């Protein structure tokens, strides 16, 4: 039996398994392409046209437009590939953490510091 057979949700966590990986394939492939500067330039010049090239769903395109990280995760985005999208916008992992948790950047950083108490 696979550990993935336990479907009890882990709060605030999406298991990036086969179902999510299939759902997010085009989205993640688009983000993976952003490892290259030329692709980042092309993305920046017309985000939606670039998304179209990779066959993103309309929901995924909306989430890209809205910088909606949780929405992207729910639609199959993998955080490792989304990091390349977000990084290109100048967001680091703490910015992304703040966005996802609905905290301000300062509040999010404070929460991390408190984990050390």
């Amino acid at each position, binding site marked *: 039996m696979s550990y993935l057979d336990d479907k009890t949700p882990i709060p605030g966590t999406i*298991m990036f398994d086969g179902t999510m990986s299939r759902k997010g394939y085009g989205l993640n492939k688009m983000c993976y392409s*952003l490892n290259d500067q030329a692709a980042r330039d092309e993305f920046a010049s017309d985000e939606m046209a670039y998304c179209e090239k990779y066959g993103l769903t309309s929901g995924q395109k909306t989430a890209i437009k809205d910088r909606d990280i949780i929405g992207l995760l729910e639609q199959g985005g993998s955080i490792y590939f989304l990091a390349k999208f977000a990084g290109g916008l100048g967001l680091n992992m703490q910015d992304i953490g703040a966005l996802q948790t609905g905290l301000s950047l300062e509040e999010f950083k404070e929460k991390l510091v408190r984990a050390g108490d």
Partner: protein
Amino acid sequence: MAKIIGGIGSSHIPAIGMAIARKIQKTPYWKSFFDGFPPIHEWLASEQPDIAIVFYNDHGLEFFLDKKPTFAIGAAAEYISYDEGWGIDTIPPVIGDEDLSWHICNELVEDEFDITICQELGIDHGLTVPMQLMWPGNTYGHMKVIPVVINCEQHPMPSPKRCFDLGRSIGKAVESYQKDLKVVVLGTGGLSHQLDGQRAGLINKEFDLMCMDKLVNQPQALLEYSIRDLTEIAGAQGVELNMWLAMRGTLTGQVTELHRNYHIPISNTGAGTMLLSNV
């Protein structure tokens, strides 16, 4: 005969590479983290290993989801670090040891670890940050490196026990190599953290400290956890403990803790640093 002289556990998060590039290691935020490394530098300087086997995970540089090996191992003459898309510095090429890589691969497959053998392998921060931490100023030119990549990005992921056993098999392979070489093994990543979801920012200090304690002489105690357990307890990226377990698996002799450091937070993580000798 080749000999594994010790293991090092270390974080590999990109923010560390950014801090090194900006030369802010001595600022209040970073100091207690970087202060964990001089004892390791001294040990490396006195022990003079020839080879570093580095367990890490590829966060979407070399491997996309089209082909995602559970375990991959480098068998190249050199490894190049490439643009990861969000601005971390690349590092000069890392030199490989093809003969030892192939020896390890031959032994692993014989031992029923069916790894993916890579004659080209782009290296991301999972490997480049530890290289910069162990050999500041990129002074690793005298070292030969064997990268070992463990899937931590897409479920299903290999269990802690499987990763420990992979390490043990690599350890045996190294110790059966005929050349006189001193080998150090790096387990990189972790410790507890979660980057994605509403639970982003989770850190579990108590669990991390327990893991570091057990790693020294009771690693078996950590092999009961499933990947789901680790995700729940230590966060979605807490599964990077697997690389530390693989490192520990390679140490088959008398293991002694020579040094450790633990600091919260470094970026979004509990950052562990550990030096173990293997006699």
